[in-house]
């Protein structure tokens, strides 16, 4: 939190120094809305906290417009935003839109077209904010005509994290080569991943260290496990869009989908097989526990969300492996990397979210001003350091960010150079229901009640059924 304090201090001074030139514009633009209070809802994460603790206060000082940001849990945030927009109760002026829910919101016409709004109101169009400054992540929040409906506030990629100290350990290297016949290195293929996992579990046990070969986000009751399968494991095996055929919205092989096809089954079998090499808490691990396990030094490798990679690598108050973390692209099956590079697939998950404006908001113009404030290049660097997120192209080369990048094994550089290989969630308005239908079968596969093959057969059938019920399939 010393970091947060420093970034607050830094941003206040930087802001006043740098944005001095534009200050006047913001003051004038905000004049008509002085005294208004904007109400927003978002998740309680470091990027969200930075907004409410730093940016909102700066904005209020500058324009006299007050911002009240409710930070809450993941499910509550969704629920309240959706309720407000469904019922048009006009409670929130801006809401957090996670990348996977944007399609649902656009489909149901919940959000204000920001591009149009700005075009119609030149007085609130900020001179130092250009949507072209954003990374490609902003494309997720545009409609068919390229109009922006959400201003990105965070973006990360889910990467492969590994323990540099373990992988560079001389004894380990020798023993590995002796056992497997090739050199020990961060996994590029699944065969390697499994060998690494198997090896380190044994190695750690022999060395009497509390560590295992891999993390598994395998909570047997929480959707986090289904997400790891759908967002990360499947794509890297070549199963895209949850295995659902986007022409007829069917998932089972008989009906044209891939969810219970050969690749998907191989993927699930591989992943559940990793449980043998994972710490015991894997079966109770959601995204938070995976981060905690890795930070406690209990795993040699794993798939970890970008927002966790940052603090695991640098924050000594929360992590035991500071300075020992390596970051790299996740392993992929043969041909998948090429498919992704040519734009026909993807290798992993591009995570993140934006702020959007509900139609029922009573302060649309003031909110558009606020969202543009968040979209300025000037505020991005400190925000990036506080929250481990980047949404603007220019932020990558900011000296402060470069410094942190070096400490986290070039995570930001990786995101800049290979971000195009990753993709967000598929454009499914039925996202929540679809995933919930698949959940029970993944849980049972993890708990050993079903084989991976059975689980996927039943999951595919359940999805097909759901699609018919919701009216997407005939």
């Amino acid at each position, binding site marked *: 939190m010393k970091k947060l304090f420093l970034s607050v201090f830094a941003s206040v001074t930087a802001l006043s120094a740098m944005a001095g030139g534009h200050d006047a514009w913001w003051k004038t633009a905000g004049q008509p809305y002085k005294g208004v209070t904007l109400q927003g809802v978002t998740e309680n994460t470091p990027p969200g906290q930075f907004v409410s603790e730093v940016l909102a206060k700066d904005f209020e000082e500058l324009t006299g417009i007050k911002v009240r940001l409710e930070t809450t849990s993941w*499910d509550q945030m*969704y*629920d309240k935003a*959706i309720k407000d927009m*469904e019922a048009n109760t006009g409670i929130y002026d801006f809401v957090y839109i996670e990348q996977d829910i944007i399609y*649902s919101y656009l489909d*149901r016409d919940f959000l204000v077209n920001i591009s149009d709004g700005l075009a119609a109101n030149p007085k609130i169009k900020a001179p130092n904010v250009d949507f072209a400054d954003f990374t490609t992540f902003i494309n997720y929040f545009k409609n068919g005509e390229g109009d922006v409906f959400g201003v990105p506030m965070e973006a990360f990629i889910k990467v492969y994290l590994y323990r540099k100290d373990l992988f560079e350990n001389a004894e380990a290297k020798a023993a590995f080569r002796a056992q497997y016949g090739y050199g020990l290195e961060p996994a590029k293929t699944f065969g390697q991943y499994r060998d690494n996992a198997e090896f380190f579990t044994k190695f750690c046990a022999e060395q009497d260290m509390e560590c295992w070969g891999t993390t598994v986000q*395998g*909570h*047997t*009751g*929480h*959707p986090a496990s289904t997400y790891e399968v759908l967002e990360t494991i499947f794509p890297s095996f070549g199963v895209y869009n949850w295995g659902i055929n986007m022409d007829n919205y069917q998932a089972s092989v008989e009906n044209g989908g891939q969810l219970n096809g050969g690749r998907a089954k191989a993927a699930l079998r591989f992943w559940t097989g990793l449980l043998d090499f994972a*710490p*015991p*808490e*894997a*079966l*109770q691990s959601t995204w938070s*526990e995976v981060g*905690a*396990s890795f930070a*406690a030094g*209990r795993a040699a490798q794993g798939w970890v969300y970008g927002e966790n990679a940052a603090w695991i690598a640098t924050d000594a108050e929360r992590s035991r492996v500071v300075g020992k973390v390596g970051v790299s692209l996740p392993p992929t099956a043969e041909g998948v990397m090429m498919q992704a590079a040519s734009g026909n697939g993807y290798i992993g998950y591009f995570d993140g979210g934006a702020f959007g404006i509900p139609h029922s908001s009573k302060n649309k113009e003031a909110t558009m001003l606020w969202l543009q404030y968040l979209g300025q290049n000037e505020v991005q660097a400190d925000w990036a350091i506080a929250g481990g997120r980047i949404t603007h192209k220019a932020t990558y080369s900011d000296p402060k960010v470069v410094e942190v990048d070096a400490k986290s094994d070039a995570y930001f550089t990786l995101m800049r150079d290979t971000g195009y290989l990753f993709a967000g969630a598929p454009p499914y*308005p*039925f*996202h*929540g*229901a679809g*995933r*919930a*239908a698949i959940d*029970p079968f993944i*849980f*049972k596969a*993890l*708990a*050993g*009640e079903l084989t991976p093959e059975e689980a996927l057969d039943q999951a595919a059938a359940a999805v097909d059924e759901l699609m018919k*019920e*919701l*009216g*997407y399939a005939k």
Partner: protein
Amino acid sequence: MVGSKRIPWYLLSPTIIILLIVGLLPFIYVFIVSFYNWNPLGKSDEMTYIAGDNFRKLVFDDDFLLCVWRSIKYAFTTLFFEFVLGFLLALSLRKSFPFRPFFRIIHTLPLVVAPIVVGAIFKLFTVSGFGPLPHFLKEWFGYKFNYGRDAEQAFWLIVGVDIWHWTPFVTLTLLAGLSALPKDPYESAKIDGANPIQIFFHITLPMMVPVLLVVVFIRLMDSLKAVDEIWMLTSGGPGVETRLAGIHIWRSVFESRFYGYGSAMSIFLLYITIVICWFLYVIMTSKQNQFHDK
């Protein structure tokens, strides 16, 4: 009783007004919605009237019915232990013994820890790898405790947490009841030479029936729809083994957004609860009548 008939209604009116407005209106809404097919995530997010179809579907919905069955198992198991334990403890608190007030306060502590924190603390306590419980179970007994995998362990874990959390409620309420019992019957019984066991079964128990009913009903109602602590601990896992009805409905409404069907399930669960309570009411008041007949 002599007196104007209007007075009781004056006394009752604030209660009735609040309950009508804040209690009845939402209920009517849910009732109405249960006759519609409404899922905002569907191709059409309109509400379409389908009469009793949701309820017809319910009857064949194995997943949901299993959840209801699990809830009933859970509710009765926790009720049994909490009831027996709570009653014994309440009885023991009537007469003084060393440090009684101190023990009473400690006993009440679990009640004032928020359910979320109870769930969180027990999760931290029992999670494999970090928690003390699995660690000591393994070291001292060689027992592998991992409720992410073992359904039995998961079930008894959530039962245990509930007992820890809610037994004091039973104790306190029964204590309230015991303290208000009239003294006469006891004096007559002593004169007649009855022993403590007879006194308990023929005097105390029957007179306590109204309070017992309150306790049993409240615990039953609360555990049949329980969500918070279980969600923190197992989220319904492993698989769906601890997915109680409350969790199932919660996920249907919040995640899958089946508003219509979710409303129907809620009404159904409500109905089941009412039936069970009515059943118990009949049984327990017949015992009370037995006493009156003597």
